[in-house]
């Protein structure tokens, strides 16, 4: 354990130097070589992020541009993914939807990670009554099937994308509190934290200097596992009418829109759904790969070519 903390510390110091960069590049290469699925995940996620950032630059048309002269057209050179019932270009809308999904995932996970991590550190450091209280509250939230709770919350607040984001953040934070608390419980007995305390460091200093940094890797892996689920849940809620509302280009909302035309205009539902499936797949592959990568028990037993 100490070895790894040392390595993390050294890695941090080295990050600015050329040697650190080279080592980071080496780690990435090793991660990609470990399994073909890791490579697939990284490629998909990179592509999706690039399209989300630069999508508006390459988008052939304004995603909300109505063109009544070109309604319900099948895929063609002009409209790669076809058009909908008011002639909007589905490809442009899928690109716009990708940006929405990424933004949504960032907000949901930032909210739940921040809130969950603060409470987790508090719970782990304080112990006693505070710990008990926080843990029982997380138990309560975890006792619900998450999706049902999120659906109920967004319906209660009134269907909109913002409320869906909030509802999913409410569903996600307890997982992070649990995860971080567990880490803090083991970290706070470790030499470098005890040493810091002996030297007279305050609790706040220890929490921000040592704990946050050391729970970061495991939280990052959890985030990478949750991104796909956050995007999927958002779209599912939008599809059910509990999230983003048409004419939003959110993928679930586009599919709801196109659903009644599925027999005549399959491309309207097929392409946004495919984009959603590939996005979730990419993040799940990456998250899965990362989790196995940091888990020494499974490490080395996955993918690759060693028999």
């Amino acid at each position: 354990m100490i070895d790894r903390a040392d390595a993390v510390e050294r890695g941090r110091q080295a990050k600015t130097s050329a040697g650190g960069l080279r080592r980071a590049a080496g780690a990435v290469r090793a991660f990609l070589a470990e399994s073909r699925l890791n490579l697939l995940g990284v490629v998909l996620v990179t592509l999706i992020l690039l399209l989300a950032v630069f999508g508006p630059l390459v988008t052939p048309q304004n995603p909300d541009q109505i063109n009544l002269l070109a309604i319900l057209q099948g895929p063609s050179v002009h409209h790669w993914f076809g058009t909908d019932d008011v002639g909007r270009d589905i490809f442009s809308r899928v690109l716009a939807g990708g940006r929405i999904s990424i933004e949504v995932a960032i907000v949901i996970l930032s909210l739940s990670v921040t809130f969950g991590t603060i409470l987790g550190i508090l719970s782990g450091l304080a112990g006693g009554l505070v710990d008990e209280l926080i843990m029982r509250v997380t138990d309560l939230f975890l006792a619900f099937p998450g999706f049902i709770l999120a659906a109920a919350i967004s319906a209660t607040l009134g269907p909109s994308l913002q409320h869906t984001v909030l509802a999913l953040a409410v569903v996600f934070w307890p997982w992070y509190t649990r995860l971080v608390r567990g880490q803090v419980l083991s970290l706070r007995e470790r030499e470098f934290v005890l040493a810091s305390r002996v030297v007279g460091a305050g609790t706040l200093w220890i929490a921000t200097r040592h704990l946050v940094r050391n729970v970061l890797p495991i939280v990052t892996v959890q985030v990478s596992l949750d991104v796909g689920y956050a995007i999927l849940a958002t779209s599912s809620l939008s599809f059910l009418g509990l999230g983003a509302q048409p004419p939003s280009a959110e993928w679930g909302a586009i599919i709801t829109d196109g659903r009644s035309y599925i027999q005549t205009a399959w491309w309207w539902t097929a392409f946004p759904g495919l984009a959603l499936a590939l996005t979730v797949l990419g993040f799940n592959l990456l998250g899965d790969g990362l989790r196995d990568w940091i888990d020494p028990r499974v490490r080395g037993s996955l993918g690759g070519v060693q028999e």
Partner: protein
Amino acid sequence: MGTLIARRLAFMVFVLWGVTLVTFFLSRVVPGDPARLMAGPQASAGDVAHISRIYGLDDPLLVQYGRYMRDLSHANLGFSFMTRRNVRTDIAAFLPATVELAGYALLLGFGLAVVTATAAAYRRGTWTDVGGRLSAIVGLSIPAFWLALLLQLLFHTVLGWFPLGGRLSPGVVPPPHVTGLLTVDSLLAGNLGDFTDAVAHLVLPVTTLAAGVYGLMVRIMRTSVIDALGEEYVRTAEAKGLSRWRVLRRHVLRNAMLPGVTVLGLEFGLLAAGVFVVESIYQWPGLGNYAFQAIQASDYNATLGATLVIAAMYVVVNLIVDIAYLYLDPRIRYA
């Protein structure tokens, strides 16, 4: 072990109480006047006030919560103005459809997952393994609502093999109610026509729902089969000259199942979410569809009742899983 179970039970009661607390207060912040919804849009202001008084909707929230808990202790979940029936009656009517759907999905997903996971674990690092792992992640990643629409398009609209939705074709007389599971009841009544019809209606929704179950299970089982394969007792069994099949069945799978049992709780959460989406697309008259319609109609007794029952089942399933785990692991059983 007795005290462990007792503690779990006490904890379950606490969680269930918390569930009522969260759902109750969540349902009371719903915008809109429930009395107005119950009375209908044509009702006069006087009627609305009357309904408010009858149902005590003007009382302080804590008083209302006290009343709700009192009713709950008599297993009374209140009245649904959406269906104009008791919520308990509704739930009893809709639950079997969901149990049937989720049960078959669990069986199908689990069965396929054991095969894939075993094949992947035995041929670790080969394309079989990569393909198996990929199929699992695809199963977890594919949006259920999208898969449902595609399956409907392909197998109903284009090929015409399976019906679009519902539990039975219109005009088919359902078998006499025994368990509420149509496949079982129709067989009990010896009605093969009903049975075939029920199965045809089950195929698409069960497949949709099974995808996620399969994905989660393959991930867990593959690792546990790999772990089991590395154990001494497996090597011993092989050294004794047992056939590969026997080693797999008696030694590898039997031990690899344990982690599979522990994720049943997780699977249940996944199924609850899936049921919600899948039932609404396939017009499946189950609890998920009921809850969804109740949420949309702001029918809070129905929403509350359905959420409570789902959460209660979730808690109970997790309790059973915990106890089963304690029981299956002799190190804990005899401690």
